[in-house]
């Protein structure tokens, strides 16, 4: 399987404040990587570096085997879709208009979206099952609805790699499950997905791989059962956790 996202000896952070170093990653179609780590552990910094929004401090990022550093922004946008951490939008665009913005990298500098772009946006809206929201204003959506709309915008980009920064943060239980279900479904369709979360249990539910960012830059990476252990979680979060089995599922239980 072709590698879609690769990091080689990646150092990320800022010149005076390195956040992490020596990270190696390789993600192919169908892979779901769950990034775990405490607040301020560098998850968003890593994502911004992977997307070329922040220059790497060492090493390199490759998209589809090509160096990200040399890639024009439009080219990056056609390969990698980004759903940033949820925040309230400023202007009352409709969901349809917001999803259409995902087409930017396919539209000329002075042009407006054409029929093909409108079709792609409609397909993305239907793929997420949010057709009934299309004419609603993004400012009036609930957190869960907004998250689905933002994922639809990333799909409209035509990218096969999706980077989701805490997509389940501040969502209610039902919406968290819905977002995780979408992640699994997209991976089954051949997308590669990277997402971050505060709930280690979500890695067992939706991820094929886990990257644990612990304080001091120590990194662990591997299949969920190898990485999500009481010892590793104690190192990362400083609390006691039990990992139990329910049927063939594993769950994380904090010990209070």
């Amino acid at each position: 399987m072709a590698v879609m996202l690769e990091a080689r000896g990646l150092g990320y952070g800022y010149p005076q404040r390195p956040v992490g170093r020596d990270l190696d990653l390789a993600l192919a179609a169908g892979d779901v990587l769950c990034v775990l780590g405490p607040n301020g552990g560098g998850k968003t910094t890593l994502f911004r570096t992977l997307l070329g929004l922040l220059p790497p401090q060492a090493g390199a990022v490759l998209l589809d085997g090509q160096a990200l550093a040399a890639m024009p922004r439009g080219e990056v946008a056609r390969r990698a879709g980004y759903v940033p951490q949820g925040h309230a939008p400023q202007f009352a665009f409709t969901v349809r208009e917001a999803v259409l913005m995902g087409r930017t990298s396919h539209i000329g500098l002075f042009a407006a979206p054409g029929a093909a772009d409108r079709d792609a946006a409609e397909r993305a809206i239907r793929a997420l099952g949010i057709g009934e929201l299309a004419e609603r204003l993004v400012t009036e959506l609930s957190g869960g609805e907004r998250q689905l709309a933002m994922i639809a915008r990333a799909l409209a980009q035509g990218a096969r790699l999706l980077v989701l920064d805490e997509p389940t943060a501040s969502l209610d239980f039902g919406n968290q499950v819905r977002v995780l279900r979408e992640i699994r479904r997209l991976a089954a369709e051949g997308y590669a997905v990277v997402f971050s979360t505060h709930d280690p249990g979500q890695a067992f539910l939706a991820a094929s791989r886990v990257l644990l960012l612990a304080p001091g830059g120590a990194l662990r990476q591997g299949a969920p059962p190898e990485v999500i252990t009481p010892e590793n979680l104690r190192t990362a979060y400083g609390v006691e956790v039990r990992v139990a089995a329910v049927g063939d599922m594993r769950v994380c239980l904090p010990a209070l």
Partner: protein
Amino acid sequence: MSPRAVLTYVLALSALLVLTAFAFAVGRFPLALGDLAALVANQLFGAGYAIPPTAETVVLQVRGPRILAALLVGAALAAAGTAYQGMFRNPLVSPDLLGVSAGAALGAVLGIFFSQSVLVIQLGAFAGGLLAVAVVYAVGASVRRHDPILALILAGIVIGTLFGSLIGLLKYLADPYNQLPAITFWLLGSLAAVAPRDLALAAPFAVAGLVPLYLLRWRMNLLSLSDDEARALGVSVARLRIAVVCAATLMTAAAVAISGIIGWVGLLIPHASRLLVGPEFSRLLPLSMLLGAAFLLAVDTLSRTIAPIEVPPGVLTALIGTPFFLWLFATARRSWQ
């Protein structure tokens, strides 16, 4: 476009046409609508209707340039305000932000202070506006550790204040019988003394500013997202922002060069237009320009008819603008999100 948006456009355009005819008819020398129609027919088709010669002078030499100027300045200020608001992701900003107006005013006041010709005064306004933006942009770009938008806005406020105190100094030093009234007149804004030549000088700059805004009309929407989001969608945010700042500043400076400082238009009109047709820039910009032209024409017509002396239009826009701004402030939650 939704039926509602189409209706809004039809109403705005009709209002503008009715208002323009009305503005030609009223004033110190009232004109019958019949004479007005005859004059238009004469001018356009050489129809040869008999009309009083005074009417022709009033329409062509006095009211014509003034009405055209009101339309141009209103549309330019509203377009610039729409661009600034979209770009700074804040519906409460206006061309006064970034020190554009203060810079243009300083340039003009310098011209008056050194008793230069009208042409030099206008060019001074122009250069001052562009200089202010350049300084603000340089300051904003050099403080790298802050949110770029906040840095720009704060730099704009600081530079604007500095220019304001320099204007204060020039007023203090100016000849109180000759220059001071001229400076005050300029700072309050007025369309009373507009000559066709002023229009011919400033209009190309306004158009030059409008063209990039029109061409970038869809991409402008992306500037309403966070920088990271827009860049991840494939936009070169920094370059796009420079292009839009230059275009909007060109339009503001052109407007100030014609009319002096007329505040509030660039704040009120884009906001009202957004309430009517939503934030989508390619739908918003033309409506904003239509309403801006209509609003300033209405204000200017009022300013020359409600009292025996002319009321400066800047005073009227402030009287209308202040309550609107406060209302906006109180109810902003819904509309500015």
